[in-house]
């Protein structure tokens, strides 16, 4: 009787070790079915402190910036070469004068900048002024030490511009507020919000391909033409340093 009882107490499920082995087996089955996702997620958390940090990001961004600059220079050279072949208009290169803004009237009716470079530094009436972002305006008058720039938001300003996507010319009119109006003399023009505006290759005042702004809203209430409000890329309210481009439109 006693011996029988002893046999019944030694069955495999009575051993803790066996249950542990079974649990490990189940876990491995789960890992196999989930294709190791548990391990991958676990690795995600333990490797987090060692991920490529801010320093590496800076290096990558710098490399990308250099790559873009090289590409930009190559494209510029290509553009100049092709323009020369096609006998299109071009502006003189490398003739930039850096100037600081010493007076700024970017609100109200009078929208102008006064720069600290004048006729003494070679600035001439009609020179183009660009800032970070793109076109700001044209030099309207010069004194010995200063030059005055009419901003493209001024009610006096009217410029021929190029709408890049639909490939059409338009007229950019300053209204005395921060958003000049683009007038397109065709009702059927396919213009959309977000279209990019640059200086027109047909313009006699500006060299071609200077970025100006982006279409912000379109007004189709007029019968014979379409108008659009343009958000400028260069912000005259905040720019302190500008570049004066000596225009030589051929």
């Amino acid at each position, binding site marked *: 009787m006693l011996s029988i009882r002893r046999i019944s107490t030694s069955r495999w499920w009575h051993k803790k070790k066996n249950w542990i082995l079974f649990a490990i087996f189940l876990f491995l089955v789960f890992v196999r079915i989930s294709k190791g996702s548990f391990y991958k997620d676990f690795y995600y958390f333990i490797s987090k402190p060692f991920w490529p940090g801010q320093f590496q990001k800076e290096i990558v961004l710098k490399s990308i910036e250099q790559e873009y600059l090289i590409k930009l220079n190559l494209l510029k050279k290509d553009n100049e070469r092709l323009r020369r072949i096609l006998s299109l208009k071009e502006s003189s290169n490398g003739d930039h004068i850096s100037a600081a803004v010493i007076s700024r009237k970017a609100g109200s009716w009078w929208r102008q900048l006064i720069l600290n470079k004048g006729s003494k530094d070679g600035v001439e009436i009609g020179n183009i002024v660009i800032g970070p972002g793109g076109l700001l305006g044209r030099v309207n008058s010069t004194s010995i030490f200063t030059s005055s720039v009419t901003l493209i938001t001024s009610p*006096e300003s009217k410029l021929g511009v190029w709408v890049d996507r639909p490939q059409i010319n338009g007229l950019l009119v300053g209204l005395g507020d921060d958003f000049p*109006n683009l007038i397109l003399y065709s009702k059927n023009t396919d213009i959309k919000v977000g279209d990019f505006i640059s200086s027109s290759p047909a313009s006699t005042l500006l060299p071609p391909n200077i970025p100006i702004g982006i279409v912000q809203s379109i007004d189709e209430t007029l019968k014979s033409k379409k108008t659009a409000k343009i958000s400028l890329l260069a912000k005259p309210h905040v720019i302190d340093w500008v570049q004066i481009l000596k225009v030589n439109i051929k």
Partner: protein
Amino acid sequence: MNKFFTKKLSIISFFFIPIIFLWHPNWLGLLGVQPYWPLFWLLPWSMIHGSFNGLIVGLFLGLILDSLTLDHNFTQIPGLIFCGFLFGRIKFHKENLVGHFRYGLICSFGSFLCGTLYFLQILFRNFLDSNSLMFISGVKNILAEVFLTGFFAPFICSQLLRIFKFSRRKLHK
């Protein structure tokens, strides 16, 4: 030398108007618009010297400010002449506090007048191109200018008036 400055204070301050006009600090503006600075000087000066002198000085101010702005097609002269003439007809108020607020109202009205005359010139210029309706958004320039001019006028005009009166008294002595 000191006496000369005291006597000619109003004339000397006249030459600072274009500089303040060009100064245009962003932190002082509303919607990018500044108060119409020449009115702060024109009001006390015209009140002291009368309509005719106010009209002449309005013309001078207009000529100087037009030469500073680049708009060759539009001018500030009509507005300033009219304001100079109008301000010359205003009498002094006995009660000081009312006087201060009155300067605010008068300068607001003057700014509205100058702004509207300038705006009408822009509308008229673009009337033939049938683009004039686009310029309606510029009304906000007038409103911001009217508010700011009215807001600052009581502080600046009353001080200038006090200085001009003092300088005139010295001149007659």
